[in-house]
């Protein structure tokens, strides 16, 4: 019985159950690889509230059309975007990162404390379609909340998807944790309300 329980527990943490590493189909095959790596567009151009609010912000159709009213204006692939704009009907994207209803995550505070996009979202600039790169288990969250020095990076590098942690990450991390006043928040109320 113990073995069964252990097996189920392992299964629960598997990438199958956690839906990681599986590209999610979208109504428009938006490629972060093309827009970020290919064109060099900053994350914040579309995810505008990532520095000020809990939600990073999914761009309104208007943001897409600010470029695509000029370029690729007849591309068939973009017809749903144009239809959305024309008919004032929102696009419905499939959620990739889905924290449970009783978890209240805030992008702004993480980004401001030196937590890089790719730390949780993976090598987003290599993803033609986005997949989930982290398990989002509570254990995974706590790994950083207990030891932020393992992951924190200089604020200037937060949106840099080419950033690689240096060899002396722990040393740099401890320095940044002190400088940015990063707290080790493991109180339940930090995320659960």
């Amino acid at each position, binding site marked *: 019985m113990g073995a069964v329980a252990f097996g189920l527990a392992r299964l629960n943490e598997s990438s199958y159950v956690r*839906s990681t590493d599986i590209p999610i189909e979208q109504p428009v095959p938006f490629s972060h690889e093309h827009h970020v790596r290919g064109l060099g567009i900053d994350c914040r151009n579309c995810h505008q509230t990532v520095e000020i609010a*809990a939600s990073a912000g999914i761009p309104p159709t208007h943001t897409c059309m600010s470029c695509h009213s000029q370029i690729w204006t007849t591309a068939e692939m973009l017809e749903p975007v144009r239809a959305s704009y024309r008919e004032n009907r929102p696009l419905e994207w499939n959620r990739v990162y889905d924290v449970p209803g009783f978890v209240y995550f805030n992008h702004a505070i993480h980004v*401001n404390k030196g937590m890089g996009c790719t730390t949780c979202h993976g090598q987003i600039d290599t993803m033609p379609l986005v997949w989930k790169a982290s398990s989002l288990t509570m254990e995974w969250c706590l790994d950083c909340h207990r030891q932020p020095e393992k992951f924190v990076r200089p604020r200037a590098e937060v949106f840099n998807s080419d950033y690689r942690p240096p060899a002396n990450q722990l040393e740099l991390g401890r320095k940044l944790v002190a400088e940015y006043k990063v707290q080790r928040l493991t109180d339940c109320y930090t995320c659960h309300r």
Partner: protein
Amino acid sequence: MSDTRYWRSLEDLAQTEEFRRAVEDEFPGRSPDWLEPVKRRDLLRLMGASMGLAGLTGCVSIQPQEKIVPYVRQPEDLVPGRPLFFATSMPMCGYGLGLLAESHEGRPTKVEGNHLHPSSLGATDAFAQASVLSLYDPDRSQAVMYRGQISEWPRFLGAMAGIRKQLLARGGAGLRILTEANSSPTFAWQMGFLLKDYPQMKWHIWEPAGSDGAFRASQAMFGRPLHPIYNIAAADVIFSLDADFLSSGPASVRYQREFADRRRVTDGQNNINRLYVAEPTLTPTGSKADHRLPIRASDIDSLARALAAAVGFASAPASTGDDARDSMVRAVAADLKAHAGRSLVIAGDGQPAPVHALAHAMNQALGNLGRTVQLTEPVQNAPQDVVQSLGDLVAAMRGGQVEALVIAGANPVYTAPANLSFADAMARVPFRAHLGLYQDETARLCHWHVPQAHYLEAWSDVRAHDGTASIIQPLIQPIWGGKSIHEFVTALTDFPDQRGYELVRNYWQTQRGGTGFEQFWRLAVHDGVVPDTAAAPLRVSANLAAIPPPESQSLPADQLELVFQPDPAVFDGRFANNAWLQEMPKYITKLTWDNAAYLSPRTAARLGLQSEDLVELTYQGRSVRAPVLIAPGQADNSVTVTLGYGRTRGGHIAQGVGFNAYALRTFERPGFGGGLQVRKVGRYPLALTQNHHALERAELVKRATLEHYREHPDFARHEHHPAFSIYPEYDYSKSYRWGMSIDQSVCTGCSACVLACVAENNVSVVGKPEVIRGREMHWLRIDTYFTGTPDNPEVVHQPMLCQHCEKAPCEPVCPVAATVHDSDGLSQMVYNRCVGTRYCSNNCPYKVRRFNFLLYADWDTESLYALRNPDVTVRSRGVMEKCSFCVQRIQRAKIDAELADRRVTDGEVVTACQAACPTRAIVFGDLNDPKSELMRLRRQPTSYGVLTELNTQPRIGYQAVITNPNKELVKA
């Protein structure tokens, strides 16, 4: 003071066995199986079951695929997940309460008071808090109806166009419009045009809780209907003649604030006011009285006359015929005279014209006019005697003079006095149209019914108690296609189907037109008040010779009278379908989900009645069956019933709850009257929360007179036992130490905080049977304690919520660590860890933990999804919950502060209960910040902790009650 005995209820006073059981048993009404020792066989069976189920929890669950739906064009200033606040006003009985409505991506979820609004001053009442539930109420009217069949708005307009032709030809003769009290400047403007089109049309106003007495008295004394505004802050001595000015009426939120500001004894300031109240039923105002006289409503007239004589006018009898009353009258009169110009006499809305006239006369004689009472021109549109107005309408309908009746908002079939037989008279009208939030009793009997837009759905405007106009700004499109009153009456004009926004804007253009209009409009909408619209105070004097004689022969002392009052929860019935209000324990009685006939203990004993007896009340030839509730402080031989219950139409929640007191009400005496017969016919269970969650007897309440306080300012402080704990101390000095102060001296028990908590924290409603089992879910309750005799007790209100004890007894007993402390000292409740042992609740001495015995949250009704606060988890079955100190607000402030690299400042975190409190009794803050308002209050000598002898180290400090009795009366 420690020898004073405080009691929660008559059962507590008598220490009945039932009450002791309630105190000792946290979860009454359990199956006896759980109380017996466990047998070996049962244990094995349960173990087997739990091991089988334990396997299931390991089963995998893949999250369902969710959608993200961004905007097409994102509105300016909108950040998803960050609420926006828009100024608006809630109209009620023709006056507005200024609000800031919280909008989450276009969904209003909560209202707060508007600091700029004169009636609100930043606070709200319970009705405003509950109004968001009414917005999403799935029982609201959702379609235009014609003769019981679903129709459409254009068809209604077509029908009205036909009627319009006939009416225009007759100059409007036969057209009657019936509205509720209304002060909308735009509506007055529209009605002006209508009266030009239809010069013979008549505009009737009916407001079931309106005051005909005040209107008639003002007509007599000043020759026209003037509107009184009280300056409670300037009054040292207040005498209330059956006036519940602290909890009812358009300015009650403001008056509570003004009263409270004159009631605090902080930082040595101890010049507090004195309040005398004479009333039949204990109200929040009576509960704050320094001297309260329980008196039949019928005897108020003679009391007022005796007081007037003692204050110094002739032509009034000098005695009430009762020695105790006479001595009170003498002492009160001396006190009023000693504070001439700084005193105030207020007459209640339920009292007839002579009492109002006497109050005017006394205020004039005492030099209070222009000081503590300002008189202005009426704020309401078409001011009229609402009772007479309805009577005239009924007479005209009966006489066949009414061709078309257009009812906008009112529900007269249900609310009209019974002896008018409104429904019968209305049946003679050939064309009847109704606008209403619900398909109610009146809608059913009208040919046409149009769904009304909720105030959060439509543009309008309204005046505050002092005349200040506000624009009512909608937060959402009408969910079910409702129409505003402005849009509805356009059906009678040449230009039907105009939009409310244009109408309101066009009216204000006529007032403040010109080049600056756009700026004016934007500012007025943004601020929620239109500048320079308050009514100007008048310099008038009353015609003392015009005081009307008593309205009826005085009632023999041994005869029963019947008093009608609006209900503290459902008011006149308009909120009957609001489950939050239905489940709100009514102040003082703590009755939920019902109304009752309140009897004094002595009268009940004389009639051989007990609480929860069902009686037949027979009054003026009509009868209804009502449950009895023995109410401490009720006047002898006075039976009070509240209106608004016993609905036959108007929603699932409203129907079949309570009894209909309107069925006894008469047109001639809508306030009260003698000649009541009471006959017991059975028993009827009531859902009373008074004895629920009763604390073990201890010094829970501290109270002293002002005189005692001046000599012993630190009377409330304990002789402290040295705090000793086996648990190690935690150092909170580096983080925040959240704490609260609650001032019992000013708390009136109005329950705005209770409903603010419900709205903010998605607290579930459980229904009457579950309330009877003690399973109500409110995180914040108001415990009412009485002291003295049951006939005329003194009252203390003690808001009780999680104390966030530093040594919380609930935490060590949790086997799964579902409730633990955080580094700021909050006692956290972690729903996803809780397995429902309820040990924590058993071990909480404050009894503030609530268990979801069933799935109380409504997860099925679609319209309610939008109501919930997205920042707070909706709890499921089998989970414990309790006050979190509004941790979602704390976290928001902490993140904002961290982003700006600073600490959270004092006043940045305002809990929902604190924001709603009209008296500012509740203050939240950081105990680590010596300069905070919280610490200023906690340093006061009157601050004490409840049950600190248990070494719980609560984070909430209560401030002791200070009363200011008149020495003359204490001696007597």
